[in-house]
């Protein structure tokens, strides 16, 4: 018995065997995404435009693309700001709503399973179609959203949602939250199932109320899930492209221009490949630092 225990202890102490489980997936990702990342970095330090795309010698220009973007390009600054606003707003709303729904559907009532399943449907629609349908619903005159608001007497005149520089951003955020809610809801709901029921039961016996249960049990035990959902949500939202492209193409007057749409526009509408790559890298670098902060927290947690 003692021999067994010792072996088990050894197994858990420091175990490089674990890496063999991880490597296949990691190598796969390095192969298929590592090359594009390097390709993109190199491209952003060159000067590849329409005229030089097919020539063999590509001029190396160092940080010139980045410098030009930061010093001469107002759209870049707008895009960075817009991207941050878009991401934070989307995350807050979709997370809170998703969390609330996950808790709500944890209750077992008659329609709970069916409704929760049906709420996944927004996820099955290709984003391009979602974008188009929201663009249509947000229309000024023919749009059904204005029609609702008017019927409810909330507004007296139609709002020009997508054609006004101040309302376009809220409208695209709304559409993205609609897509994001099921994602958050399901992931949190699955996370909730990892919390042992007995914990709630014993706490309830000790006289804890629902709010206390939530604060002392649900939140701390759900922390890893919440962290993963938020970091993934952040990364995915930060690079949302299709939805914006379809709904506003970054307009009106760049008021919904994000780093991702701007990068696409530079690369494939204006054929400034290196500039487009540089903008994508700016997006990449911001995400990289956000992830470092996330990892630092997780790591500290695990050390404890």
């Amino acid at each position, binding site marked *: 018995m003692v021999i067994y225990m010792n072996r088990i202890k050894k197994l858990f102490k420091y175990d490089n065997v674990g890496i063999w*489980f*991880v490597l296949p997936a990691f190598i796969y990702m390095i192969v298929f995404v590592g090359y*594009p990342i390097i390709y993109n970095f190199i491209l952003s330090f060159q000067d590849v435009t329409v005229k030089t795309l097919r020539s063999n010698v590509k001029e190396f220009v160092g940080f010139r693309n980045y410098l030009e973007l930061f010093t001469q390009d107002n759209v870049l600054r707008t895009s960075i700001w817009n991207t941050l606003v878009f991401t934070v707003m989307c995350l807050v709303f979709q997370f809170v709503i998703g969390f609330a729904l996950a808790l709500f559907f944890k209750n077992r*009532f008659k329609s709970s*399973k069916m409704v929760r399943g049906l709420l996944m449907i927004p996820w099955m629609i290709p984003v391009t179609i979602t974008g188009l*349908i929201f663009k249509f619903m947000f229309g000024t005159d023919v749009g059904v959203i204005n029609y609702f608001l008017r019927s409810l007497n909330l507004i007296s005149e139609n709002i020009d949602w997508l054609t006004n520089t101040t309302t376009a951003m809220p409208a695209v955020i709304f559409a993205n939250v609609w897509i994001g809610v099921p994602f958050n809801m399901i992931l949190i709901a699955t996370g909730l199932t990892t919390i042992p029921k007995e*914990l709630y039961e014993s706490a309830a016996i000790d006289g804890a109320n*629902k709010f206390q249960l939530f604060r002392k049990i649900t939140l701390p035990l759900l922390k890893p899930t919440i962290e993963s959902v938020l970091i*993934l949500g952040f990364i995915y939202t930060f690079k949302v492209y299709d939805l914006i492209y379809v709904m506003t193409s970054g307009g009106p007057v760049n008021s919904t221009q994000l780093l991702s749409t701007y990068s696409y526009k530079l690369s494939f509408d204006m054929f400034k490949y290196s500039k487009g790559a540089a903008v994508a890298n700016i997006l990449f670098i911001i995400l990289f630092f956000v992830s470092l902060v996330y990892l630092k927290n997780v790591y500290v947690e695990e050390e404890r």
Partner: protein
Amino acid sequence: MGIDGNLSKRKNILYCFISIMVLCIMLFPLYWILATSLKTEKEIFQIPPTFWPKELNLKSYMVQLESGDFNMFHSFGNSLIISFGAMIIAVILAVPASYGIAKYNFIGKRAIVLGFLVTQMLPVSVLLTPLFIMFKNMHLYNTFWSTILADATIGIPFSVLILKNYFAAIPKELEEAAYIDGCNKFTAFIRVLIPIAKPGVMVCAIFSFLYAWGDLAYGMTFILDQEKRPITAGIFNFMGQYGTKWSYLTAFAVVTIIPVTLIFIFMQKYIISGMTSGAVKG
């Protein structure tokens, strides 16, 4: 929240009511897609909008069956192949990886987790050209494989990060018991841990499938032949140079959503029961 369990009858009705309200709000855009698909192009642009078509127009659905090179059924099959392929790759690779990260301390673990995140940090648009060059050199251009391999790169990091929490939540004692029973690390993983983490694995499989199902950029870029393209590519038949054919487009959306929805409703029993049964016992 709190102790889930059976609710009083009145609460039950109230909750049902609330849930139906939530459903109506969340699924309204879907209803709008359906209603629009049954209207004539003229009625779609009517002011004020009509909530149910005045004259039922089924023409948009007929059109789905006769769109030139693009064959609805064929491309539906393509999408299934691509999505299942991507899902299988993602699950096979991500499940052991997440277990490894959750249960072992090895050198460079943190860097690897960061590595998985890093792969998700570039917008799709800038991945297209280098991936295209790569697939061309691998002779995978214009085959399903290019898209399957590319789509799996979305599902893997996602699944790893979600599943690692699952494995981490499984008490050590269970694993230890398995060793005492004579399992080695690998067999313990297969026989004991995976079954416990099944709801998480299911969710990851579903999301990997759906990521691939909704993908448009990869399928369009890496597959040139119409007859090999995924169903999402069909959207371009109605969204072209001179504008959007709303009635056709929405009918197309309805036709593409229904089969997936059916699959999910059919599988729901397994998915949801796995999710709610509180699989991990303390």
